């Protein structure tokens, strides 16, 4: 613990707004990219080699961009904005053309969740017009798959996570609600599998590790709550992690399942061991709320970066716990 506090290896500035969402795309030979969505409605595509914004897409006519992602298979960017649209963009050969847009009707902050079922098809889950309703559609055909509405009163949908199990079941969906409940849905059955009250306050964010069947959720209080899925797909609450300051906007587990990062409202990014949930480091650079964290998907584990986007309009890039990569 005697190590000095780490410093960001670089900071990206000039986004011109709060950074709600970040997404890396580092596989392939292309210049490695980081996508960021700002509160001013622009999506910046940062080139991580030159550390400059390669392109700025004005995506949602000035409304805040809440979520960005890319498809593994094609050069397609998906963005969600507060203008109640989810847009698909073609990025091939330096273009940035609008391919499709889907109207969600949601006025909340719930970020979409994407699941690629095959190279050409993928499922998109999003909060719908009714505050507690979740819709899942198939893209690019735009066919609605299902609509999930809880019977009990749980309030607005706050966060969702769609994933595919290794067992025979179809895709599952985890959703956090305003009253602090977590619900597990079976998408194909359109049925609730399990429900648990994880927080007294709204669930602000959740993340899930499908390999360990273990997830963690954050709220506006001082507590992170971790839970597992048992063989019957019941959510079992596990240890809590108590934070110094309340409020977490986003949680992210690194691909290797070793560390967890939290974007805190106290301007700090905290790093935990995913196995033990022991706090490992506090990354302090930003001067305002951290809104988003993301780990890069670089093939070389040593070059996997952590990015944190903050309300202070800066993105900080960190290289942490990369040396012993590969060891248990």
């Amino acid at each position: 613990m005697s190590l000095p506090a780490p410093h960001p290896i670089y900071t990206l500035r000039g986004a011109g707004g709060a950074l709600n969402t970040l997404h890396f795309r580092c596989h392939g030979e292309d210049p490695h990219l980081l996508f960021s969505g700002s509160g001013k409605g622009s999506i910046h595509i940062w080139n991580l080699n030159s550390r400059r914004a390669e392109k700025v897409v004005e995506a949602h006519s000035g409304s805040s961009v809440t979520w960005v992602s890319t498809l593994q298979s094609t050069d397609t960017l998906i963005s969600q904005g507060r203008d109640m649209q989810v847009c698909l963009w073609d990025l091939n050969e330096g273009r940035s053309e609008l391919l499709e847009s889907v109207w969600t009707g949601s006025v909340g902050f719930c970020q979409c969740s994407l699941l690629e079922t095959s190279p050409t098809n993928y499922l998109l889950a999003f909060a719908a017009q009714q505050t507690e309703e979740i819709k899942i559609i198939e893209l690019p055909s735009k066919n609605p798959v299902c609509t999930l509405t809880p019977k009990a009163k749980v309030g607005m949908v706050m966060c969702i996570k769609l994933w595919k199990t290794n067992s025979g079941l179809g895709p599952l969906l985890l959703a956090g609600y305003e009253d602090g409940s977590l619900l597990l849905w079976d998408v194909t059955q359109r049925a609730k599998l399990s429900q648990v009250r994880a927080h007294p306050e709204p669930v602000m964010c959740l993340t899930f590790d499908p390999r360990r069947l273990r997830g963690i959720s954050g709220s506006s209080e001082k507590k992170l709550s971790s839970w597992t899925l048992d063989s019957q797909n019941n959510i079992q609450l596990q240890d809590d992690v108590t934070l110094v300051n309340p409020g977490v906007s986003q949680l992210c587990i690194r691909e290797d399942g070793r560390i967890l990062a939290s974007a805190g409202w106290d301007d700090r990014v905290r790093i935990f061991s995913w196995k033990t949930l022991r706090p490992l480091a506090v990354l302090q650079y930003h001067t305002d709320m951290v809104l988003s964290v993301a780990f890069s998907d670089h093939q070389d584990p040593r070059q996997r970066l952590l990015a944190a986007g903050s309300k202070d309009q800066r993105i900080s890039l960190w290289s942490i716990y990369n040396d012993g990569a590969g060891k248990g």
Partner: protein
Amino acid sequence: MSQINDPKVAFAYLRPACVLLTKEPTVANVETLGEQLKEIHDASLQQLQEYVLFPLRFVLKVPQLKKEKLVQAVAEALSYVLEKTCVQSWDTLHDLFSELCLCLCSPTDPGKPADLSEELKSALLRCLDALLHAAYGDIVFKLYEPIMLPGLGAAVSLLLALGEKEKSREVQAAALRCLQSLILHCDCTQEHVIPSSDERCSVGSTMASFLPGIAMAVSRIITGNLRQGHAVTVRAIKVWCGSVGLVMEDAQLQSSKACETPSQELGRIGQLVVQRAPEWVKSTAGKLSVLLKKIISCTSAHRHWRVRLEMVELADHLLVACSQSLRECVGLLLEALVGAVNDEEPKVRESRSSDGTSQILADVLSENLHSLATSLPRLMRTSNDQKKLFVLKVFLGYFKVLGPLVSVVLNSAAHLERISKALMQVLELDVVDVRIVEERSHGESLERSSGSVGSYAAHIPQKHFLYFTDEKIFSVLMEICRTLGFYGNIYLLTDHFLDLYRQSLVYRKQAAMVLNEMVRGAAGLAMATGAQCLDSGVQGPSASQEDLKVAAVSIMEEYTSLTNWNLITTCEETDGDRQDQQVTLFSQVWRCSLNSNIWQLCIQLEGLACLAQALGRDFRPLLMTSLYPVLEKAGEETLLVNQAALNSMMCISQACGYSSLKELINDNSDYLLNDISLNLQRLSQHPQAPRVLTVMLAHSDSSLLPLIRDVVQDVLMALDLSYNHSAALFCSVLHALMKALARWFPVSRCRTGGSARSKTSTDDFNCRQFLLDYQKQKDLAEGVGIEVDDTEDLEVPPASEGEDAEDICGPDEKSELPSHLIITKEVAERCVHLLSDPRLQLRLKVLEVLELCVYVLSERENELLPMAHRCWPVLRQRLTADDPLAVLRAFRVLCTLGEACGDFLRRRVSKEVLPRLTSSLTRQAPVSAKAGPVYTHTLAYKLQLAVLQGLGSLCQRLDLGEADLDAVCEACLPYLSCRQPVRLQEACLSVFQHLIQVDPDTFWFTLNELHCPCSYTPPHPDLPPIQLSGMGRPRDEYSDNVLKLLREEFGLCDGSVC
């Protein structure tokens, strides 16, 4: 004139003259024959040759006839005939040869030249030369038969003696030319007999007997008199080259004929014949190499390029012809050649053309290179500059000749080690100069350079080396490094020199210099690539752009690593305690190490520029990491480092294709700001971060502002966190920032300039209107026109409502405030805090910053006035109870504030500041009136001056009340005295000029009270006469200035009466 072509006619024509000559051998007759000979055609002359030659030879043969004039005339005629014809008979050749030799030699000793006139000698030598050229191919070789040895020997020694001892250059040259003909190495334009290999062999065998003599004597000529002129030396080298090349020729020695035993018939002559057996060859080669060494050492650095050229040809010829037999000399010859590769004279440089000697030489060359590298440091210490230059040229030559083979040679660790160590030692810098540390840059250079990029760049620091002073030597050394980089393996070299760099502090600077040039060389910059290398097929550098980039990155990382970059270059700490000698001794050592640090930084900065030049536009991505360190050094105080950094920036911006420094910085401001912002958070490790910002601000424009905003926030936050430690540092940043803002957003002064030109209206003074106005004012004062007043009051609210309306939407609009004003406000806030700092220097700096803040804010009164209010208490403290320096600065701020805020500060100034100022002025007036010229250097004077200069406009801007104006006037009047220093008087005049604009009448009266030049008669006799106390006063100390004011401000001339 047509020549006689028919032999018969010719015979008839010549006959009388020939007969006459035989009978009466006189000069006239010879000349007649000579004239007539010229009219005969060559072919006819050939037929009559024997006939014509007879009388001439007859003259030579008869001993008693040998008068010099006659012999000379005969020799000339003979030469003419011989030049035009061929000698076909051996007897003629033999006889003529011996006759001519006989004429030349002294009667007693056939080996010594006779004591003859120079003209005669040169005529005879010319004749001899012509004879040798005229001899037919089949007979000329008879000359070289063993039987001829004695005669030939005599001729050779005669010619050598002439060549060596003779005073006249022409004779010397002619003798040497004859020798050249004799050894079949003539270089004239005539046709020559080309010997078969057998013939050449026999000639060689014969000449072998004379080789020792020729070689010795000729080398004496070459190395002898420096003043003998290059022509002789060149000839001598040719002779040496020809004779050695002839006798030691590999082709001859390999054939069996070379060592045939002479036939027995020769008798005693047989003993003279040399057998060129291997032992003989070996011993001769040994002796020759001694001579060769002498010759090379004497000629290779010869002043005349022809000599050097000849030397190259010698080396070339011998290398081609005798590389086997003269094995011992190959090294020497190569050295001479290699040295010439870098000759200043292009003809010498390009002359090297031998291509037969390629691969086998590589070993010899690398061997030589190794030994030269070994001895290089010693040579550099001991020899003179001329010699050093040559040695280094040889060194460079080896690399050039080796060409791409350099990389093979360098693969040998021993070679690389030797070469690098040699370079390290040779390039050692001399770092004892005091000025390096002492020189300081004072910020101005920053601004100056930002203005004019082109005119800058002149000040490039000059390096001083321990072992040489000549600039040429340095440039050769740099070329060596470039050549290394060009041909060598860039990875290997970079690794090796970086190792040296890390290895020891002693090598660091040299290694960096080598690396810098090496990289440039590897990119093919500043490389004169000729076809000089052995393997001339290769064009372009060996390293690819990719390799170069990798090497550049590793070099840059090493240079800019914390330990190598953050070197101590200033000695503020030691300034205080430099008293006794021990400390001085200590500081001597300390200074050296500081100097060394400074040089290292300079070299590394140059290095970054070199890397940029080498990579060109590919350097742009590297700017991410390299620009910040360079800017960091550009903000350094040490002049040399500062300049080097600016130069480096200039180079980088050029290399990367930016049109100016501004563009470079603007385009890469994101990289810079990133580092600045990160480093501001760990200021203890990176105290330079604010400096970089300063440099950035100095060099860029307002387009930077949006990006800079959050960094400014960082700066302010960092400042807030460390008021005690780094406030001074931050103050300079804030100063730079505000200066930049003031430059980027010049305030339009229209708001302030409009008022107070009321003076023009006084010209056409309307008495009636004045009285009416006066009446109105009086009524108002007595409360008569209150209703009117009310209406006026009513008129005001709408305007203020408008302001309110603005204020209502204020909270929203506040965020719309231009960001430069937001920044300025924040800065001003810090200034308010820092103004009461106990450190005087800091307070002064802060006052400057505050002044700029006021200037920038002055365009928004809404922002300015609250700020003025906030800073007033501290500013008052500075004005009233602080060090005079601070008072001075604070007064300037006050003036600017007054200029910007107008009457906002009126009451405060008049109550809190003005009394002090006026009292200090009054107090100081008698002092300055009495003081001598030294007074103008005192602080008190400066304060007086500043106050007087600013007071006038301040009074005017603040719209001060009458009482205050009176006080000001009271205080200033003493300064109108002509006893005051001139500048104070001028400043005081300006005060009055301003005061007069505020209230002309009062001050007209005041001035006239003091001195009134003219009397005023009332326009009507009923009015009482005007009595002013200044009237009729004699001229006193005030009169001049008062008159001046009255004249300039009121248009009053002495004689005029109103």
